[in-house]
């Protein structure tokens, strides 16, 4: 399989993540969708790195760093979501309308 195959899979995964982020109402599922998009970008980075003519490992290092940042992001995100759910008693994002006029 050439690089196009990997990039198309990555594109599809990013589209699925974007769709999930926009369409779902559950806050935790929105976080999961963000993780899907992170993974899509990671896959494209590793694919580009693997198919470079001269061998280097910058893409793999970048993918590892994105993983670390994603871990930090999901930790803080889940803590925020749990705190919000504890005060509002719901995980539905369209119930969070306190800031609306």
């Amino acid at each position, binding site marked *: 399989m050439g690089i196009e195959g990997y990039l198309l899979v990555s594109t599809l995964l990013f589209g699925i993540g974007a769709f999930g982020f926009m369409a779902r109402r559950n806050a935790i599922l929105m976080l999961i969708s963000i993780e899907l998009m992170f993974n899509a970008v990671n896959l494209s980075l590793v694919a580009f790195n693997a198919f470079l003519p001269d061998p280097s490992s910058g893409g793999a290092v970048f993918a590892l760093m994105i993983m670390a940042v994603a871990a930090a992001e999901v930790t803080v995100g889940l803590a925020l979501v*749990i705190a919000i759910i504890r005060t509002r008693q719901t995980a539905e994002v369209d119930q969070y309308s306190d800031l609306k006029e």
Partner: protein
Amino acid sequence: MVGAGIAVVTLRNIIHSAVAMMVCFGSLAGMYALLGAPIVAAAQVLIYLGAISVLILFAIMLTQAGDANLLAPFHRQLPIAIVVALAIVGTVGWAVVQTDWGMAAEAVYAAVETIALTLLTDFALPFEIISLLLLAAIIGAIYLARRPEEDERAN
């Protein structure tokens, strides 16, 4: 893998979604191994399958007491979301197919030694900053997830 990804965003029960996400991450680790990046595949299994999935499952079980099956899982902006997602996939996919990549035809194996050397020489400063970021994230998560009454007990 794409099927598992679609299952993640369409399944009604959020626990089923999380399990589909684990399947998706596991097959991604397989793709990294196919691409000749075993260290990234191992990190994927450790971080995503081992840590993030368990964290998300715990969060779901903490917050969804019995009412996991919701009547309407989708937001009312569902049609717009479908259109925008299809536009993203169409545009990027068209660009991928149209571009002449002109790269090596076969995936090159990235040795663990070169990755380790690159990580600790060229990328030493980002590596240290990442550790600081993780520390900040841990402290922030502990602060945010703490219950208010534990505050008063501590004082």
